[in-house]
């Protein structure tokens, strides 16, 4: 729960949104796929997808997109968010 709270705080600090959903999906012994779904204050929804390498705890960027069927669009990654997340798993 503590890690979840910290991810929630990181999401607010760096992505300026409220964490709504967090998915950890094990994809083999050395890889975890993480999906951070958050909502910004204008009620737009975003999905930030990353892969966590369990061996070296590196966070690899996968995608960051506006979560909408009609307006599917890739958004830039946020290096500070990824670094903060990596530090969390170090």
């Amino acid at each position: 729960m503590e890690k979840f709270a910290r991810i929630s705080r990181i999401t607010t600090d760096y992505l300026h949104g409220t964490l709504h959903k967090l998915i950890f999906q094990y994809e083999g012994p050395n890889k975890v796929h993480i999906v951070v779904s958050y909502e910004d204050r204008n009620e737009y929804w975003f999905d930030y997808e990353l892969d966590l390498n369990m061996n070296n705890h590196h966070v690899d960027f996968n995608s960051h997109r506006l979560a909408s069927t009609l307006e599917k669009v890739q958004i830039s990654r946020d290096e500070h968010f990824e670094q903060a997340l990596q530090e969390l798993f170090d």
Partner: protein
Amino acid sequence: MMLLSTNIHGDMSGLIINLGVIILMGMLFGRIAEYFKIPAITGYLIAGLLLGPISGFVSLEEIKGMSIISDVALGFIAFQVGNELWFGKLKNSGMKIVIITVVQAVFTTAVVTFLTMFFVDLSVALVLGAIAAATAPAPIMMIIKKYRAKGELTDTILPVVGLDDAVGVIMFGILLSISVSMLDVTSAEVLTVFEMIKTPLFEILISIGLGGAIGVGSGFAIRTISHNRDRKEKNLNIIVISVFLTTGTALFLGASPILTPMIAGTVVTNMINKDCYVLEEETIRFFVPPIMIAFFTIAGAQLQFDVVFAAGIVGVVYILGRIFGKMFGSYLGTTIVKSSSKVKKYLGVSLLPQSGVAIGLSIAAYNELSVVAGPEALVVKNVILASVLFFALTGPVLVKIAFTRADEIEDVKEEKVIPWKNSHAYQE
């Protein structure tokens, strides 16, 4: 190629193969567009252009056989636009945002209608005007996120684009009904004002009744879904039933196939809590992508260069009218609510991108107008498709210029990311 382009009468295999190729090409070009930081919809349209008018791989006759895709996709688009009309969100946005959105949308519609009516029939000009109001949030969002935009312009534009499509769709539903009733009379007939508004009014009332009734039923059904493993599946079933029933019954009863699912979407979103709303959005997003890819790729394949060139002047007037309407309409709206000079100056330019909803509305207009006036319907469809390509390609550049001049974006270094491949770990 012969195998794919041959559609044996009574045999659905050719149609199914063509659909597979359409979705495949749309997906590929959508990915390529995303790589170049262009919204995926532009890629779908380009794929359609290649499959349709450029290569002739898919003919207009074959496209007619796929009309169920367009009806269903339009139902989902309208339902989702309705979903955005959550009254709590309107309250949070505040009256200022509502005033700016409505004023700029109505002004843009009025300007485009007024300017294009010198070149086309008033009934067609009304439809073009209504579609001109729609704005695409994607390029705006892309620039804001990429350059970490902050400030008054950013704070104003985000809620405005969230509401803009709903206002545009409502105006479109009303004006399309009026337009069809105007075209549906012979020149010998002289109509009174009452007779002219009777049919559209009746159509709108049926749409509200149907959409409202199906929406209430769906809202109650979603609220009763229990929290278990089947939750998503049940939710999806209800949404699909709602969209199919609203679209189908609207077409059957002569109501608006755009307003009806939109009203159902609005009723549903205001009956359920946020948790249910998020789940609903997720399930729609999981289900509709192939339908949307097919719909937008087919839309691109329907572009007819001869019609575009023949109606070239209408297209140019539409584009210029929309630019003028958005800029001065936004200026008017922001002046009424006393926004800062920066917002007054740059909001209009930032609202120029147009894509998904405008394409959907042009296809909806074509479907309805083609029954009573084929050539006019073709003009609407082709002018909008060509201008959407124009605004999709120029819009993001204009948005960036506006935000730079408004001094609301940071100087962020360009990054290379391959969207379909993991990359760039932060090495210590």
